[in-house]
C-alpha cells in the first residue's frame, strides 16, 4: 500500500480550504483526479486481467480450430457444460430467490443469527472449490452422512451428472442470492403496502410487485450464476470426477487436454472464453455489481 503524499494531499486540501475562497490551484489539482502512481498501478492491474486473454487468442491454433471444435469430445463436453450450467442456474433461482428474501428481511434480526446467515451464504465464495467438493462428497458420498441413507433408497449421487449440477449450484448460489438481495434492499418496499391496500394478497404482492421490482437483480444474478457454474472445476472434479459424457465438463476437458495436447486445450478454453464474453455483454453496465444506474 503506497501511503504516498498525493492522495492524502488531495483529500485534505479542500477540507482545510475555506469553501467560498477562490483558491483555484488546489481545487483544480483535486479535479485532475488520481495521481500518476495510481494510474500506473491501475494499468498494471488491468494488464494482469486482460493480457492472459490476449495470450490465448495469440496462441490459438486457428488453422486447426474447425477440426478441434467439432471433435466429438469437444461437443460432448460443451453440451454437458451448457446442460448442467442451465439446470444449476434454474436451481439457484428456485432456491436462491427465497433465500435472498429471507436474507434481505434478516436486517431486523438480532445480530448473531443475522451474521450467521450471511456467513453461511458467503461460504462458497470464500471456500476453495476443492474443499467444497470434498465436503459434498463427505455428505452425499456412498459412506457420507446423508449418502448412506440415499444408498439405502437406491440413490447414488457422486460421480453422476447430478453431482455436477449439485457442485455447480453450491458454488454459484451466492452470486444469485447477493444480487437479488441487493435489488430487494434497493427497491422501495412500501409499494408492497400500496399493493396490499389495493386488495393484493401476500402472494399476489410478491408476484406482481416484488418480483418485477427485483427483476434486474434476478437477471444479473442468473447471468453471473450461469457464468460461475459454467466455469466450475474444483468442486466438480472432486465430487463428480471426470467421466466423458457424464461429468467431464468443458473446464475439466480443457485441463485434461493441457496435459498432452495443448492446442486442444486452448480450443476448449476459447469456447469458454467466448461464452464468458457473451455473458459479460449480456450483463451490461447497469447489472454489474457495484454499478447502479
Amino acid at each position, binding site marked *: 500500500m503506497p501511503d504516498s503524499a498525493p492522495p492524502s494531499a488531495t483529500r485534505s486540501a479542500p477540507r482545510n480550504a475555506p469553501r467560498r475562497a477562490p483558491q483555484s490551484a488546489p481545487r483544480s489539482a483535486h479535479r485532475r483526479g488520481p495521481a500518476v502512481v495510481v494510474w500506473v498501478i491501475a494499468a498494471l492491474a488491468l494488464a494482469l486481467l486482460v493480457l492472459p486473454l490476449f495470450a490465448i487468442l495469440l496462441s490459438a491454433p486457428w488453422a486447426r480450430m474447425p477440426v478441434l471444435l467439432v471433435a466429438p469430445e469437444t461437443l460432448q463436453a460443451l453440451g454437458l457444460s451448457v446442460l448442467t450450467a442451465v439446470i444449476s442456474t434454474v436451481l439457484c433461482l428456485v432456491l436462491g430467490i427465497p433465500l435472498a428474501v429471507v436474507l434481505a428481511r434478516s436486517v431486523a434480526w438480532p445480530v448473531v443469527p443475522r451474521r450467521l446467515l450471511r456467513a453461511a451464504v458467503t461460504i462458497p465464495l470464500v471456500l476453495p472449490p476443492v474443499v467444497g467438493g470434498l465436503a459434498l462428497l463427505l455428505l452425499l458420498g456412498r459412506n457420507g452422512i446423508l449418502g448412506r441413507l440415499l444408498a439405502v433408497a437406491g440413490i447414488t449421487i457422486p460421480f453422476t451428472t447430478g453431482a455436477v449440477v449439485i457442485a455447480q449450484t453450491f458454488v454459484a448460489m451466492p452470486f444469485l442470492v447477493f444480487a437479488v438481495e441487493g435489488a430487494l434492499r434497493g427497491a422501495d418496499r412500501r409499494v408492497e*403496502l400500496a399493493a396490499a*391496500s389495493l*386488495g393484493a394478497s401476500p402472494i399476489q404482492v410478491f408476484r406482481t410487485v416484488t418480483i418485477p421490482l427485483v427483476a434486474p437483480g434476478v437477471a444479473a444474478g442468473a447471468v453471473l450464476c450461469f457464468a460461475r457454474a459454467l466455469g466450475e472445476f474444483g468442486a466438480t472434479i472432486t465430487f463428480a470426477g471426470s467421466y466423458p459424457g457424464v461429468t467431464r465438463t468443458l473446464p475439466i476437458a480443457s485441463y485434461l487436454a493441457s496435459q498432452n495436447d495443448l492446442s486442444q486445450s486452448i480450443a476448449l478454453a476459447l469456447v469458454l472464453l467466448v461464452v464468458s464474453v457473451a455473458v459479460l455483454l449480456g450483463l451490461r453496465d447497469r447489472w454489474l455489481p457495484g454499478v447502479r444506474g
Partner: protein
Amino acid sequence: MSGTAASAPAALIADITARRGAFEATAAFHVVAGRPLALVGPNGAGKTTVLNVLAGHLAIERGSILLDGRDVAGLAPEARRIGVVFQDFLVFPHLTVADNVAYGIRMRGARRAAARAAALPWLERFDLADFGDRYPHELSGGQAQRVALSRALAAEPDALLLDEPMASLDVEVRDEVRADLARHLREFSGPTVIVTHSAADVAALASEVVVLEAGAVTQRGTWAQLREAPATPYVTRLVQTRENSRRENSRRENERTQARVVNPQPHQGE
C-alpha cells in the same frame, strides 16, 4: 359502494390505540361519507401511525375500527377495502399509468384486458387518458397524485385515507392540485380521512377536524369551531397561519384588482 341501507351514510368509527416502539397514540373519531375528516397535528404527533393502523399496515394495540358496521381491525390490509393515497404516492414504477389504475381491479380477479377497460373511465375522470401508456417516472407530481388517487378509487374502497397529500408537491402547484383533489373527494361516496399538518389542506379538503398532539386528541370540531376557540397553542398557531395566508392572498388579489382599475388597458403603450 357500501352495503348499508341508502338512508344511513357509510361510516368509519375508529377507537384506536396504536403503538410504535415506546410511543403510543390514542384517537377516537367518527367519519361519515361526504364529510371528510382531517387528522391534524405537529410532526411526531402520531397522525401517520393512526393512519397506518386504519390501513392495516401497523397492528392495532387496542380498540376497534368499524367500517359500515364490520370491525376490520383484525383483518389484513387487502381484506379491509380501505384505499390509501400515500404521501409520496408509491405509484408502481414498473407499471404504466393505465396498469397502475387497473391494479386493484386485476387483484379482484379481472383479466388484464378487462381490468384495463374498467380503468379507462377512471383515467378519463382524472385527466389521465393521454398518459395511460406512460411510466410513473415520466409524470409530474400532480399527475402522480392523480394516478395514486384514481388507482385507490378504481379498487372501489369502502373508505379512503390520504397521508399528507400535498407534502411531496411543488409549492407552486399545490393550490391548483388541492382544488382538484377537493373536487374528486366530493365525488367519493365513502368516509375519508386526511392526515395533514397544513391548515390550507384542512380548510379546503375537510369538513371535520381532529387535532392530535403527542399521541392524544386535544380538540375536535369543524374548522370554523377551531378558529373560534382554539384549545391549544398549536391550534392557535395553525389557525393563524391560515388567516395570515388568507390575508396575504386577498391583499394580493386587491392589488391586482386595483391595478386593473387604475390601468384598465395594461398593454397600451408597450
